[in-house]
């Protein structure tokens, strides 16, 4: 496994203008962490969950508004609040 890559996955082939993208990476001491990231809506309700990639990255296709990202990895749970906008991708680097 190679080291952590900054930012979210490559955007090639993604319709960025019409999507509301939240993406990023989960790292511990600069190394990617294998685990899960869940997306919670403004009321705290589960919306989606993805496993992190081998390089610790994740991506969601959301809607404009306020969201919470919750990283679930062995031994830790970390929440991060984000505001997403259509046509932009919101990058979130989560350290655990």
């Amino acid at each position: 496994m190679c080291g952590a890559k900054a930012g979210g996955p490559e955007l090639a082939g993604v319709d960025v203008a019409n999507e509301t993208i939240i993406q990023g990476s989960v790292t511990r001491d600069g190394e990617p962490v294998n685990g899960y990231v869940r997306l919670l809506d403004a009321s705290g309700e589960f919306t989606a969950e993805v496993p992190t990639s081998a390089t610790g990255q994740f991506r969601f296709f959301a809607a404009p508004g306020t969201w919470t990202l919750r990283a679930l990895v062995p031994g830790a749970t970390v929440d991060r609040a984000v505001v997403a906008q259509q046509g932009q991708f919101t990058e979130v680097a989560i350290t655990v």
Partner: protein
Amino acid sequence: MSRSDVLVSADWVQDHLDDPKVVVVEVDEDTSAYDKNHIRNAVRIDWKKDLQDPVRRDFVDQAGFEALLSAKGIANDDTVVLYGGNNNWFASYAFWYFKLYGHGDVKLLDGGRKKWELDSRELVDGAKVPDRAATQYKAQAQDTSIRAFRDDVVAAIGNKNLVDVRSPDEFSGRLLAPAHLPQEQSQRPGHVPTAKNIPWSKNANDDGTFKSDDELRALYEAENVDLGKDTIAYCRIGERSALTWFVLHQLLGQTNVKNYDGSWTEYGSLVGVPIELGSN
């Protein structure tokens, strides 16, 4: 039917990995997850290639299911333990599908792949595939008492419990798909009128394990679901609602619960049927 008949812990699975009459089966939304790694001695069922008719939008027929299980080395009297990613979405779908074709002993691994990973339990390299001898599996005719079709859903509006298990944003029409998937879709957003939005995730803890029977019963009572009435659960393509079906039918023992596998991708594309927008 009790919880222990249909749901087993990671410890239980660990203790039965070498039991020849227990077949552990991985079913994932990401059908390549098994190729990375999997629980030792687990076989894979691919929900797209193995469980769907290659031409029509429907399941493989009875003979197709028999051929699939025979080839996988699963016998009629084997205990099948299903697990997968996404909090067991597709493992629940496969559970329902195995019941549809009458398999006797099927169980879910509580928490699925995520719980197993968060426990840091052993996963073997994807290339390590168990060698199971082929069987002569015999399936039963589909038990349609657990499967709803589009006309059942239209007829249920205002009469039966309709439980929409998608996220609140999909229910209200803000999103057309779960947020880990691109949103461009052809069908209309919204939900079936009179459906209650009880997201599948309310059934589960963060680690993917199911909540207790008491917590689950309280959840549906608090949402004013009359458990004495017939219920149809749906989502977008029928996998998350299979999880809710599992909760209502298998854990809580409700007798008349159907999963609508056509779900929103079918209903939201029908001409002329009623649709509602907005939250409950």
